[in-house]
């Protein structure tokens, strides 16, 4: 092992931190600000460090500097030092560092080079000119550790998303590096894939031979394997470095205010504390929260409700933000919640009857019946390949459907040209860039209006109204591709709505995005929903579903397997599992609470009891 005694305090090789980051500041070429500005932390051998920070703190940039990709492959100005095994990454080639630091990136597809799993894992050791026997031995060991050895002869394309990300972990392991850096490894995965990846990581941590630096927004899974937490502030300065107890539990309020995403269980616990509950120590996982609640007394103010075991959604709906949501959906009251019959709400806005959609020769949807009323917020969920995207695309007329099976706002989708359909339903694709067709933001919005042959004055007025509404006024003349990620997403929603569509359909709009951006979009959708827009969304993120959707539809094998109020769907664990879905963390914490049955039905943060003085604040805010 090469250990240069750069640090005077080092006495023996065993005391040297594996990774030492000191006052690291990185400015990308062409950028004005450094992000991170001054990060400092150590990682010891075998230690698992979770790196947290608000969006824009430069976490991914920091990750790239750990194996020298910054500054060697990505042009950037670097201040401070990163030392791995005593090697200064600024002056050591990436190839040398690759045997000290293994990397796993967010997009599993962008890490594949060869045609079989075995070749893929062997690729790194081969580049290091290792003898064939050692290459094979390492490949076998790495593939076995992630449970893919049996499939070594297959093309990686045939693996699921979770499988491909496990393969990427195996590839990093095969480099033989004592440190693994994982940058948002589960952001592109469905719930099952996330579980697979964390099962593999869990075994890795149990073996204890590799240190891990983990950047992850899915904290509920990550916290379980974490030894230490390092937190960067918005500028990218280290402001906390310690165990989960010292950082997550002791300084949760501070971190939350800063915009650092915390485990859902912790956020819930903070809110309960504000409402007078005593939860000490602060829970960081669903299980801990569950146990803490079973052990805690209900606060005096809330006691009568608990004692009477009355699920009284009434006052909460009135006090919470949901009072204005359309359709009068009751919250949460799983046992009482019945979707009002169509008679209560007049004619449905969307009617689907016996829908059979084909792609080529294969029938994807086998007879779907569905009604959606004006103002509903509907989530369509299901396993990969279940047909949920096809259902959404059929409703929006993106794929051809037989006549008379889908009616949106009084119009038969099959008989209407797409350009006229945009007045009834707007469709937002996963990647906003895909749907941009004009050279300026203004033209992008005006396009849909000009298609309707509106006079120029009206086109301009309506386009500017949308620009204002989505906070893009000063971007009217900018090329859509030059907007920031969040702005692109807002523009794509704007273009879908500009023609006046009462329905918005979104296909996995938060896929591959960080929590902050996903949240920004979901808040926007909630506001649209409150002002009367009907929203249909396909997503894998169960947290978003339970937080925002009034109603959830589970699609399996081209049929609707369940369709009910969101809280009712998530009360049925067996149903979720059979559909390849998982309970979001809040549900796992509150389900089956014996001591406080009034909390047992809670699925959303907004359903939690609130502190009296907090009732007027925004749903996401936590008073301290």
């Amino acid at each position, binding site marked *: 092992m090469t250990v240069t005694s750069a640090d005077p305090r080092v006495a023996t090789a065993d005391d040297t931190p594996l990774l030492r980051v000191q006052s690291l500041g990185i400015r990308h070429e062409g950028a004005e600000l450094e992000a991170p500005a001054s990060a400092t932390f150590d990682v010891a051998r075998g230690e698992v460090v979770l790196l947290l920070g608000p969006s824009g703190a430069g976490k991914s940039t920091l990750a790239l500097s750990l194996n020298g990709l910054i500054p060697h492959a990505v042009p950037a100005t670097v201040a401070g030092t990163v030392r791995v095994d005593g090697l200064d990454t600024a002056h050591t080639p990436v190839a040398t560092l*690759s045997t000290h630091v293994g990397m796993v*990136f967010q997009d599993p597809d962008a890490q594949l080079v*060869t*045609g079989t799993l075995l070749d893929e894992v062997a690729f790194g050791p081969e580049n290091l*000119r290792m003898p064939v026997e050692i290459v094979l031995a390492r490949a076998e060991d790495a593939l076995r550790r992630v449970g893919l050895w049996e499939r070594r002869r297959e093309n990686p394309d045939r693996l699921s998303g979770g499988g491909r990300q496990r393969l990427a972990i195996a590839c990093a392991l095969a480099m033989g590096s004592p440190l693994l850096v994982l940058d948002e490894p589960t952001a592109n995965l469905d719930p099952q894939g996330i579980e697979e990846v964390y099962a593999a990581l869990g075994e890795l941590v149990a073996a204890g031979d590799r240190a891990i630096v983990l950047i992850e927004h899915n904290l509920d899974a990550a916290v379980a394997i974490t030894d230490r937490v390092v937190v960067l502030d918005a500028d990218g300065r280290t402001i906390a470095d310690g165990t989960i107890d010292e950082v997550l539990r002791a300084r949760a309020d501070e971190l939350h205010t800063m915009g650092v995403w915390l485990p859902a269980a912790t956020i819930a616990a903070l809110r309960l504390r504000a409402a007078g509950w005593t939860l000490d120590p602060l829970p960081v996982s669903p299980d801990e929260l569950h146990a803490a609640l079973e052990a805690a007394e209900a606060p005096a103010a809330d006691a009568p409700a608990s004692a009477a075991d009355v699920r009284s959604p009434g006052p909460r709906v009135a006090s919470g933000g949901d009072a204005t949501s359309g359709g009068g959906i009751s919250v949460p009251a799983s046992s009482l919640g019945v979707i009002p019959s169509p008679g209560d709400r007049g004619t449905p806005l969307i009617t689907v009857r016996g829908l059979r959609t084909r792609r080529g020769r294969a029938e994807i949807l086998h007879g779907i019946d569905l009604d959606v009323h004006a103002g509903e917020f509907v989530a369509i969920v299901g396993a990969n390949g279940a047909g949920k995207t096809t259902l959404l695309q059929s409703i929006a007329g993106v794929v051809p459907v037989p006549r008379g099976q889908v009616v949106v706002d009084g119009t038969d989708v099959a008989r209407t040209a797409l350009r006229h359909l*945009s007045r009834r339903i707007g469709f937002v694709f996963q990647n906003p*860039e895909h749907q941009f*067709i004009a050279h300026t933001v203004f033209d992008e919005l005006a396009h849909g209006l000009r298609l309707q042959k509106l006079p120029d004055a009206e086109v301009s007025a309506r386009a500017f109204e949308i620009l204002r509404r989505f906070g893009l006024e000063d971007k009217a003349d900018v090329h859509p591709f030059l907007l920031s990620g969040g702005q692109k997403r807002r523009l794509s929603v704007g273009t879908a709505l500009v023609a006046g569509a009462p329905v918005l359909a979104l296909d996995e709009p938060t896929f591959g995005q960080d929590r902050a951006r996903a949240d920004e979009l979901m808040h926007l959708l909630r506001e649209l929903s409150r002002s009367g827009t009907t929203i249909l969304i396909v997503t894998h993120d169960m947290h978003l579903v339970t937080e925002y959707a009034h109603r959830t539809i589970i699609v399996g094998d081209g049929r609707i397997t369940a369709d009910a109020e969101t809280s009712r769907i998530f009360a049925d664990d067996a149903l979720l599992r059979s559909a390849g879905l998982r309970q979001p963390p809040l549900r796992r914490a509150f389900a089956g609470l014996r001591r406080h049955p009034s909390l047992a039905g809670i699925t959303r943060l907004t359903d939690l009891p609130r502190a009296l003085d907090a009732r007027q604040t925004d749903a996401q805010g936590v008073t301290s």
Partner: protein
Amino acid sequence: MTTITIDPYASIGARGRFLYGLGPLAKLSAPLPAMVLLVFARDIATPLAFIALAYLVLLTGARLTARLLLLLVVAIPAGALVLGLGMAVWTDASRVDTSVVIVQIGGWTLYGGALFIGLATGVRLAAIISLALIAGLTTSGPDFVRASVQQLRVPYRIGYTALAAFRFVPRFGHELDVIRQAHRVRGAHGGRGPFAALARWWGYIVPLLAGAIRHAERVALAMDARAFGAHPDRTERHLVPWRVRDTVFIALFWLASAGILIRFFPWSL
């Protein structure tokens, strides 16, 4: 679920079929002189003879699948015929033998000379394609890259990067589908005809390129992180040696090619 027609990584092999036992470079260089010289041939007999040679090698040396037979028996002859007739119509009538009239429609005449030239062109292309299939149908992408790196001394950085780029093809195909769908939904560039189509395709290029560049950058970083290009060479787990049978195959094929070329010299009408 998705239909990926060509898998450049698929391992190819069949027992008792000699083409799979030959090196990729031998299979490529054996028909190469004939393929080059066929460009200059103007008759029908020479290309026909080479088609016969290529078919003989393929039918005895490659695994007989329905796909291969369809290709050899239907696709190539039909392609040659269609191309031949097309070229016959297109040929400048003032420069051909006008002694035989095949068809006369109004003031336009298809002469026997034009038809002959057209068919000769079609058959020539069919011959070149058939010869290329000898290597094309029996060699996997990685084997070709390995042989190029090991024997032709092609830098491995180029060879393996090209191989990685094969992965992009189905991905971009899928991305293009989504972009077309998205643009259709937006009601972009309605209308029929070649100009509207051109405008439509132009609109797909920017988002496709933006996605492609981003993806390529990510793949490059991932490869760098695994020490790609660290050393002047890398471990080759699969050696693709040059064997005696490769030399024998090339010698025999060149002899046969020479025989055909001499027999039909000067390959003109």
